[in-house]
Every structure is written in structure tokens, then in C-alpha cells.
């Protein structure tokens, strides 16, 4: 804080400068610390944003390729992890109800058939934009069974407020019974 100005004005100026510089350096240090924390947590827990930019033609989603209707929803991979494929369109997600096992690595792959949408899963930190022409990929893990809501969170037209899906997290063995030999699962609301 500023002290009373001493008699010699030039002295005062030097004092003022010194205090001010000390503050500036402290603040730069503080910001550097925050940056270091962001980088550290990013590397340490691998909480990096998705990295690869993948494109896809939204006009042919339903005709062929990864996002045809029969391939949507949860699928069990050979390594035991689960991949969930979702398409967003005005004004719903396909599928509308998603079931995943708890305590299992889950990869989401999501794209849009028309405009920009978003998705988040309440009570988790899953949160992504869903853009036509691009595929959003992110990995996660649900610790506990439970029901979550999955709203679209970017304005996508006048029906935006109706665009909600559901996510059910179930115990791994219950999930295994659900998938059966097709290695795919979906749920009813």
C-alpha cells in the first residue's frame, strides 16, 4: 500500500515505483503458477482436450459408415472398453437413451447431422460441442451407477429446449447381461 509521500518528491517517486514493481512481479508469478498448475494437471491426469481433428460428411451419415443407425449406442470393444456412438440432429439425440457400465473405460464418438449442437451429462464433467462435419471423441469413466440427463447445450433452433437424452449407468454385470451376443446395448426410457 502507498505510504505517505516523503518530503523529497523524487524520493517518493522511487518508493512508489518500487512498491508497484513488487506487486507487478508478484502478480506475474501468481499467473505463472496458475499456468503451471494447468499444465501439470493436464499432463499428470491426462486431462487434455481431444486432440485429433476428424471430419465426416453429415449428408451421408445414415447411409453408410460408422454412424449408420444400427451402429449407434453402446458397443463393447474387444479390450472390454465401451464405445458409445451418438448422432445429434434437430431436435433429438440418437439413441435417446444411452446405457453404459460403471467402472469401465468409455469412449464417446459424437457428430451432428445438421447444425451445431452440444451435449453435457449432468453430474459429470462430460461436456462437448457436436458439430456437423466433425467427430468429437472423448474418453471417460463413470464410477457409480445412476441416472443422468443429457441435454443439448448449444442453440440449435426453436426446438432446442426439447433436446434432452438420458444416460443410465449400470453395474458392469448388469450391462454384460444387457449386451448379450450382439455386443451392443441400448435402453428404453
Amino acid at each position, binding site marked *: 500500500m502507498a505510504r*505517505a509521500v516523503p518530503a523529497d518528491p523524487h524520493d517518493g517517486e522511487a518508493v512508489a515505483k518500487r512498491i508497484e514493481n513488487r506487486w507487478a512481479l508478484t502478480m506475474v508469478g501468481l*499467473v505463472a503458477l496458475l499456468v503451471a498448475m494447468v499444465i501439470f494437471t493436464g499432463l499428470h491426469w491426462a486431462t487434455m482436450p481431444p486432440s485429433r481433428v476428424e471430419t465426416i460428411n453429415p449428408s451421408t451419415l445414415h447411409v453408410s459408415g460408422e454412424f449408420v443407425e444400427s451402429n449407434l449406442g453402446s458397443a463393447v470393444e474387444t479390450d472390454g472398453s465401451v464405445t458409445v456412438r451418438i448422432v445429434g440432429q434437430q431436435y433429438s439425440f440418437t439413441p435417446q437413451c444411452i446405457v453404459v457400465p460403471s467402472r469401465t473405460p468409455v469412449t464417446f464418438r459424437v457428430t451432428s447431422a445438421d447444425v451445431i449442437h452440444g451435449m453435457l451429462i449432468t*453430474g459429470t464433467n462430460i461436456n462437448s*460441442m457436436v458439430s456437423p462435419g466433425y467427430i*468429437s471423441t472423448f474418453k471417460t469413466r463413470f464410477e457409480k451407477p445412476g441416472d443422468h440427463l443429457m441435454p443439448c447445450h448449444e442453440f440449435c*433452433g426453436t426446438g432446442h*429446449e426439447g433436446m434432452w437424452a438420458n444416460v443410465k449407468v449400470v453395474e458392469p454385470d448388469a450391462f454384460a447381461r444387457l449386451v448379450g451376443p450382439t455386443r451392443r446395448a441400448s435402453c428404453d426410457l
Partner: protein
Amino acid sequence: MIYNKRLILAHFWLAFALFGVAILLGEWQMFIRSPLHGWLRNADLYYRSVTAHGTVMGYVFPTLVAMGFGYFISEAALGQPLVGRRWAWAGYYMIIIGSVAAVVPVAMGLDSVLYTFYPPMIGNAFYYIGVVLVVVGSWVWVALMGINLYVWKRAHPGAPVPLAMFANVAGAYLWGWTAVGAALELLFQILPVALGFATTINAGLSRVLFSWTLHAIVYFWLMPAYIAFYTIVPRAIGGRLYSDSMARISFALFLVFAMPIGIHHLFADPEVGAGFKVVHSIFTAMVAVPTLLTVFTICASVEIAARLRGGKGLFGWVKALPWANPQMLALALSFVMLGFGGAGGLINMSYQLDSTIHNTQWVTGHFHLIFGGAIVIMYFALAYDLWPHLTGRALLNLRLVHWQLWLWFIGMIVLTFPWHYAGLLGMPRRMAFYDYTAPGMFAEGVSVVMSTIGGAILVVSAALFLTVLIRNHSAARVDPEPFTFSRAVHEPVSLPWALNGLGLWLGLMIALTITNYGYPIVQLMMTPEGRVPPVFVGGKP
């Protein structure tokens, strides 16, 4: 001496009149989405309203305030009549024409695309043309601010540029360059499709270009408030500015660091790779530095005022401050809101924490607190300070002014605290209404009701603000003392080149924008697979 009072008043009055209308829309939106009623379920009307509210509050209102204040500063600080008066009026009329061209189709429901107009959603071309006209009108102001400074420097070689003008021109250049992103998007991507010349559009590229504008525009909104912190408040409370050169450094840093960080809005986007997200995240942290410097300089300046008034003790001096002075009150309330809002901003800034709140109601709560709260309250304060100089009449109702400022503060807290909370519960943004009977949604309903109450308080405060200004126009004539800006404790006699002009900082701003945006933009331009068909709203043209 203020030469072009009518020009300046015209800008301010248009700004405040539009603000008065848009705030009613805001409160209506909050009411409609609350559980307080069950009868109006018309999403179409709601999105027309949000498009208008966002466009006015985000683009038109702050731009007009910055322009009016900029013309004022140019004349008051440089002591010369505005060069290019005719051009200034031309820019003003362009903004009026642009606003009308934009608002009419929005009101008709042809352009419910919201102020961010994310393609491939495409509305009626007139909305975009209107926004372009508003931007071009404001670019006239950018050019005039640069020219006026240049003319003055030629006439006063070597003399230190007044701080207010230095900051004002920094804000103008920041805006000039910031607006380029959205302008490129509008001119080269959206308008060709809206007018029927093109049949596909790259939604990812559009979002990257828009983020170029979307972040730094925030610092453009903030500039008039910061200029008031540094150059009006210390004078108004009878103090001195602690440091002139630190003030200049803060404004220069805004210019440099506000731009190359916009991709932090795209942390959750698929079209940008992780590398640039991290780079922008780091630069985002740096833009906190000028604000932290400002907090120190302004608090120290306030302390100087208190000690000059006989304040004593380590903290006892706070009591000696002129709390009855509206500038003092506005500053204090603004700083409290800035503190809360800044803490929230630190959360948005780190991409790990951002993922819990991205595009939830947390974000809307956050920017209402910072922008609608901390910044707009300083717009009020600076209007109160300038008005007698513009109208030549006394600003009498100090009690009313007090009520107005306090109500704005209280209303903002009541509006935005529950709003943040709803976001933490996962309530998505930009929805016309919610099904509060769904499991887990009850608490969100309660918080929206609280926000609606806060909004009502803000509407009252806005009405008081307009009343004070209107009543001033018929108050007793006075001869106000010549307008002055704050003086620094140690006034600069001569300044190093870097702090007496903006050349260096402009160069850095452009260079950093190119390094941080060049690659993502070029990469997306060369990704033809990213081009998708448009989806027209309000019917195909």
C-alpha cells in the same frame, strides 16, 4: 472544452435507449423460463427475444458507449475539436441503419440465430448485413480516433499523450482488429450462403473466426469502464492517480493479450486440436495480469484520496473516503463484482474446470456479473460524470443516483449468484424453458425464480438511471468547471516511445494473432470435408 456535444449525446442516448428496451427483454426471458407461470410456451418468441437482447447488449449498446465516450475523450483530453465530424455522424447513421436492418427481420422471426449466429444455421441476410453495417460504422470511429491522435501529435511533438486518449485509442484499435474475425466470417462465409451464392459452409472454420471476435470483444466492452477507473474516479474523489506509466502498460497489455486467446471458447470443440487449445489457455492466464495491475493502481489511488482527506491508519483510511460521491460508490461496487466475476473467470479459463461448466447457465451468469455488473455500472458512473458537461445543467438527484447504483449492485448479485448455481447443477444455456418436474430439476427452478427477482430489481434500477439523465435535461443551467481527467501523482514530463504511442503494441497484437490463429484457420480452410449444407431458419429465402 467539448465542441461536439450533440454528437456525443446522440451516441449516449441511442445507447441508453436501446439498453432500456433490451433489459426489459432480458427480464421477460428470465420470467418465461422460470416456473412462475405455465401459460406461455412459445419458444419461437423467446428466441426472437434472446437474439434481440444479445445483439443489442453485446454489440450495439457497448459500441455506442465506447464511441460517444471516445469522441468526448478526444476533445476533452486533446483540447482540439474533433477532426472528421462529418464522418463521425456518417458512422452514427450507419449504426442506426444497421440496427434497424438487423432488428426488423429478428422481430419477424426470420433471424432467430442468436447473436453468435453459428453456421450452418442461416437466417435472413438482412440481419447479417445490419450487423456488418454496425461494425463498419464503428470502424469509422476507430479511424477517427487514430487520426485525431495523429493530428495532435504532429502539433505537439514530443509531448506526452494524455493517458485518457492513449487508453481510448488502445480500445479503438483493439476493437478494429477484434471485429475482423466476425467480419471475415460474415462476409466470406455466411453472407454468400444467405444470399444464395454458395451452397456449403464450414461450420468449424466459422466458429474459429467467431472466437477471434468473441473473446477480445469482452475487453472492448471493458475499456470505457477501465478508462473511467483510471482517469475519472481519482479526480472525482479528490485524489491522484498512483501511477501513469503502469496505467499505460495495463492498456498496452490488454491490446496484446486480449486477441490471441479466443480459442478458449472452443475447448470442447472438435475442429481445433489440443495443441492450440493449450496455447490459448496459457495466453488466457496472462490477460489476467493487466487487471491485477489495475486493481493495485486504483486501490492505491483511492488510498491517496483518503489520506489527502485526512484518513489515517493501515485500514482506517477507508472511513475517510467520500462514500457519498457516486464515483466512489460505483467504483467500490464495481470492484466487488469484478472480484467475484474474476474468480469465476479463473475457473472458465482452465480447460479442465471449464468442462464442468461449458455452455451451462454458469457462463451466462458469469458474463452478466462481469459485463452487466462490473462494467455497466461504470458506464452509469461515467454518464453521471459527463452529463453536466454535455448538457450544461446540474445533476441534482444524488439520492436517486445512490439508490440507482445500490439497486444495480443488489439486483446483479441476486440475479447472477443463483444463475451460476443453476449452471453447476448442469442446467444448459439458451433454452426457452425447462421441465422442472424432471428428476433433479427442482433446485434449478428455485434458482431461476431468484434470478427473476434479481432481474426485476435491475429493471427498477435501469428506470432510475434513465430518469436521472432525463431530468437533468430540464434542470437548472449551470456553468460546470472545465472537464479534467485525473492527474497522476508524478505526471509524466516525457515518455519513452513505446508508452507514448501504440505502434509497438499494435505490432505485437497482430503478430500474436497470426501465430495463434494463422495455423488453425489455414488448416480449416484447407479442409473441404468440413463444408456442410446450410440449414435455413425462418424458411429458405
